[in-house]
């Protein structure tokens, strides 16, 4: 092993140098998010009575349970304040670590940089080992900082330690998963897609598991995010649960090493077969479609499956209303149909954020094509800049719109079938379509960055994360209204969409067009950069 790991130290230093800002800000930012949420809740629920009331409302709503899970000890301040961060936070932690792991393994191979340094005294497994160490270090730092932040915010230490370790071990599992998908896939892009798909599946598994009565079903135990919930920080910690993510990480890391040992640098596990000697591609639009269609197909399948699952959960909404008091409360605000609307509306909003993620990744293809040197040969032909940019950008816009249509249809079908009420289908589709302009506004920010500051296109991911976090925690943190209004996703009309929603739709569409036009204007006047 000594040979194959030679140079691990140097690789680790290189990784730390490259990630010193990015990874540090993610780790500190995540820990701070937990700390701020804890501090805010301490003020929000000063008495045990107020906490129990809040916890029962959360546990009674299927939408909330599906998205965030249950509160296992309604009297616990920590459990109430960390409810959103236990599942959703763990998923964000997982995505970050997944991307970091792939960034230092497969993405480096794709770029050819790894080949450059492989000529030096570098063992075959050194890049993987240094990445594992990086992930382990970042996970440990996240666990420690989160524990400290929550303790400082006034939550009990034992619970904070469990919560911190829960996040840390989640980081480890999904980082290790990234190490595995990096070996299987042939490009960083497909490795990320594979990893995200698995993460989404584990999230949905626990959502279905958590909705089962009583308590979590076996499905929740199949998910690392479910483990984090069943660790039950602040609700009588079950420390033994930590064994599961540690064990899973060890297995995944072992798998990554085995796979890496069996393949060549730069290759995936699947063999390359010869392709056509002549091509039918004749336009830049055709090229963009060829490069992006498989990715869109993958997203479509995921959206359709999620839509069906989320939609069919609508029927379990009323089953959760066990307490007569909450039932009465919801009936007072508009009855069961209103409750189902709130549930479906919340799901459609989440789906819209995910569609925006697709829009960002598809539009960011412009930047990656430019940076990879693929734009130059095309722009050297009789193709104008605007036309080339449109080829990818239109796929981002039309693709995200198509995904929302698909989500609307599948959620609608799922909900209508579950509720036995097919009048739901049309209004759910309309509600999903009404989110498209907001999704476009987020997507257009990539075009704006591409036109004026091409190195910042990936920063739009951070903006999307900020929009989601503001939407989830803004009220809790008492953010001023204008800060929360900065998120385009907040302005999209929710179910049921009435005529008053039309203004929002028109305004958002105009904003998206204006931002896109500004992006094009910048792109037309700037130099191509590497």
């Amino acid at each position: 092993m000594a040979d194959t790991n030679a140079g691990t130290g140097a690789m680790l230093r290189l990784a730390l140098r490259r990630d010193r800002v990015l990874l540090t800000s993610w780790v500190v930012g995540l820990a701070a998010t937990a700390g701020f949420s804890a501090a805010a809740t301490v003020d929000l629920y000063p008495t045990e009575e107020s906490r129990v009331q809040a916890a029962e409302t959360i546990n009674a709503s299927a939408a909330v349970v599906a998205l965030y899970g249950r509160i296992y000890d309604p009297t616990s301040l920590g459990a109430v304040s960390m409810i959103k961060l236990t599942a959703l936070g763990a998923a964000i932690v997982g995505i970050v670590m997944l991307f970091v792991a792939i960034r230092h393994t497969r993405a480096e191979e794709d770029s050819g940089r790894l080949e450059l340094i492989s000529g030096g005294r570098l063992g075959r497994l050194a890049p993987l080992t240094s990445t594992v160490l990086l992930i382990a270090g970042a996970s440990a730092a996240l666990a420690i900082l989160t524990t400290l932040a929550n303790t400082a915010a006034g939550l009990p230490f034992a619970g904070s330690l469990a919560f911190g370790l829960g996040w840390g071990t989640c980081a480890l599992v999904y980082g290790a998963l990234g190490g595995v998908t990096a070996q299987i896939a042939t490009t960083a892009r497909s490795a990320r897609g594979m990893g995200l798909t698995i993460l989404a599946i584990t999230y949905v598994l626990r959502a279905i598991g958590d909705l089962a009565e009583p308590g979590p079903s076996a499905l929740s135990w199949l998910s690392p995010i479910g483990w984090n919930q069943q660790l039950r920080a602040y609700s009588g910690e079950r420390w033994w649960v930590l064994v599961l993510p540690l064990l899973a990480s060890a297995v995944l890391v072992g798998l990554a090493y085995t796979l890496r040992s069996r393949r060549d640098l730069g290759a995936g596990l699947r063999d390359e077969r010869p392709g056509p000697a002549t091509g039918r591609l004749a336009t830049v639009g055709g090229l963009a479609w060829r490069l992006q269609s498989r990715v869109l197909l993958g997203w479509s399948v995921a959206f359709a499956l999620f839509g069906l699952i989320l939609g069919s959960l609508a029927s379990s909404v009323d089953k959760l209303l066990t307490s007569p008091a909450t039932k009465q409360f919801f009936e007072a605000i508009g009855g069961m149909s209103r409750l189902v609307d709130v549930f479906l509306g919340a799901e459609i909003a989440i789906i819209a954020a995910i569609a925006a993620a697709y829009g960002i990744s598809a539009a960011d293809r412009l930047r990656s094509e430019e940076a990879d040197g693929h734009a130059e040969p095309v722009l050297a032909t009789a193709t104008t800049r605007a036309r080339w940019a449109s080829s990818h950008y239109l796929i981002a816009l039309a693709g995200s719109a198509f995904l929302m249509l698909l989500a609307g249809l599948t959620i609608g079908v799922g909900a209508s079938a579950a509720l036995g009420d097919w009048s739901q289908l049309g209004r759910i589709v309309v509600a999903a379509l009404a989110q498209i302009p907001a999704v476009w506004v987020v997507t257009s920010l990539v075009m704006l960055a591409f036109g004026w500051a091409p190195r910042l296109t990936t920063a739009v991911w951070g903006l999307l994360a900020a929009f989601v976090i503001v939407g989830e925690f803004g009220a809790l943190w008492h953010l001023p209204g204008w800060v929360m209004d900065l998120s385009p996703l907040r302005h999209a009309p929710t179910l049921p969409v009435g005529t008053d929603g039309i203004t929002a739709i028109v305004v958002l569409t105009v904003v998206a067009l204006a931002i896109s036009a500004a992006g094009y204007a910048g792109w037309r006047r700037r130099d191509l950069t590497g």
Partner: protein
Amino acid sequence: MAAVIEISGLTKRYGVTTALDGLDLVVEQGEVHGFLGPNGAGKTTTLRVLLGTVRADAGRVRVLGLDPWSDVPELHARLAYVPGDVSLWPSLTGGEVIDLLSRLQGGHDTARRAELLERFDLDPTKKSRSYSKGNRQKVALVAALATDAELYLLDEPTSGLDPLMEQTFRECVSELRAQGRTVLLSSHILSEAEALSDRISIIRAGKVVETGRLADMRHLQRLTISAETEHELHGIDDVPGLHDVAYDGTHLHCTVSAEHLGELLTHLTAAGVRTLESHPPTLEQLFLEHYGNNGSEVRADG
């Protein structure tokens, strides 16, 4: 002859670094013009300005009578380009890339494409990710050469090619010249530019420092002479224009400017010349004149 490329006073800055510093360049119709300079001299930046992918800060640039920044579709339909660093879409085969690029260009000659694939010995069914650097270069060359263009912009086109393929490339360029097409060939491989170019321009630190026919340039430069004489040479120090003299009784090695060659020969003949070798200056020597070890420009004093 009409000028196909006219550049005057071209300036391009990237922040504080000046990539092009008042560059002048004229490429006449139907010539193969060698554009010579070491890495970082500004060759690629110049070509990018000619393509309109980079915008000039100052100066006048006309290509085929058009403005390369604003007349992109009209101009690009008439030129073909081979980038210095060829990067291809990993999931497309070489054949697909060639067909795509030539179709986007407007022209597509199937027979010519097949012939070029054959001559460059390129397997078009392979996915681009499995191509070596040389094969990627061939894909770009075939795509460009299969195009019916008036102007060919080639940025270090033979990097990564083996000597056999370099020969094929040279033949292709000669054919282009025979057909009256214009080629701007950027290179740091001097022998390549020497073998192919009608005229050359030498670029240094963002400026063209020397331009003209190789023959004309040679005229300004010194010849390298090696001679052996029967008798000892006398008065060799009186011959004007001699440099780098290594003199050992009957053996002489020196350089001489062309107009003083006659005087040197008179001396050699008088001493009973036995062997005489004379080399015209190679481009390496021309180059070194402009890139001395201290980096300062040295002019021939001849």
